[in-house]
């Protein structure tokens, strides 16, 4: 899956997917855009962007949206990143969650499992007010039929490629 980290007229910037080596001149056959993205509520003023097991750049488009809306922006990530000066980088997740009135989370499948099992992490289901989760498993078909990106734990096994990749927290951790 190609995750856009920059969208401008005539320009598309994305992270190179894991395990892929593209060279200039290679042809790509792309399907998409697919699924649904973030939809931060318009009445939220303190946004926390948090990233587990992924490059923090995956939330760059949301940073752009937040800056345009002039909300307070903070980010928490296990990896270093370069951010605009208006964005505060927070070292601890729990106080950041308590501060925010909207949390946008990006996780790999391993990160999602940690969210529900790691006692060192805050219980977002109880402590966060509004959480959307960008869940990025490997996808095969991109049209919701193969099951490679089906979500565990949810009785209907929604597919990240068509029902996500952005979910409400309760869809991923019922």
């Amino acid at each position, binding site marked *: 899956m190609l995750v856009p980290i920059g969208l401008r007229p005539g320009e598309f910037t994305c992270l190179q997917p894991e*395990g892929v080596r593209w060279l200039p001149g290679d042809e790509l*056959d792309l*399907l998409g855009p697919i699924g649904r993205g973030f939809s931060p509520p318009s009445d939220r003023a303190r946004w926390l962007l948090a990233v587990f097991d992924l490059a923090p750049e995956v939330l760059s488009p949301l940073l752009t949206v937040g800056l345009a809306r002039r909300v307070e922006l903070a980010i928490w990530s296990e990896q270093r990143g370069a951010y605009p000066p208006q964005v505060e980088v927070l070292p601890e997740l729990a106080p950041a969650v308590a501060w925010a009135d909207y949390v946008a989370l990006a996780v790999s499948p391993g990160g999602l499992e940690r969210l529900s099992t790691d006692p060192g992490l805050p219980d977002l289901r109880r402590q966060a007010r509004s959480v959307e989760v960008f869940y990025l*498993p*490997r*996808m*095969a*078909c*991109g*049209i*919701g*039929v*193969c*099951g*490679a*990106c*089906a*979500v*565990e734990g949810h*009785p*209907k*096994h929604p597919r990240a490629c068509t029902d996500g990749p952005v979910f409400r927290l309760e869809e991923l951790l019922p």
Partner: protein
Amino acid sequence: MKAASVPAEPRPNVPAHGTEAPYASLELSTGKRDLVLSSRWVNAAGFLGLAGEARELVDLAQLGAFVTSPLSLQPRSPARGPRLLHFPGGFLLHTGHPNPGLGAAVRRHAAAWADLPIPVIVHLLLRTPDEAAEMVALLESIDACAGLELGLGEVDADQAARLVAACTGEMPVIAQLPLGTPGTVFAAAAEAGAQAVSVGAPRGALRGPGGGRVHGRLYGPAVFPFALQAVAALRDCVRVPVFIGGGVYNRQQAHALIEGGADGVILDGVLWTEAERVLANDGAGAA
């Protein structure tokens, strides 16, 4: 694949190769319900969904039949751990075949099956003969279900025969076994009453991100030489129609399988990328 020795008798329902047009329609019949494929191309189970969800990608009318994603009697959850791994020439899928269970799928999709332009073959994941019989009884009440494909998995000849025997009745049955299964197992499935056999994706293993082995189904261009070799051996083992696929990414490969003795070609990964390379509407796949 090991070839079993069988008498060289004409196969029922199948024109002798070389004596009729290779793309004539194919009919599987039990005498009670007929499955008529107007094209020799079918999708692999799991590649077009439960009710043609992928119709925007693929012109279903160019397929001989629509094969549903695999359905089990009870709902199944997705597999844990890595489900998709790549290797040079293909990819491994280990999804666990998540599905809502046969009953729920019938309630949700039977009406849509009736609206599809081609016959519907329901692919069943089988564990025991009793479970198989229960699933078949449910589907025999669904007019839109024209046939069954039985996902037998990695079984021996006796297990294959018992599972197929539990499913024979009103609807035509296609017994599916993985590429690499001995020909004797295919033959046992056919002798137990399957109207056709199909060759599913081979099983394999890759090293996962955590270092452990991930087992699953293999797809991609690297599979094609094995499929082409297997079809000839399988042709000697069974006298019922043979469906085979694996690594078919263009029309020439599909034709090679037909010329090698296949009665139908199963399309998998190409349906997600460049279906038009096989299904271009020039009549090659149609009667």
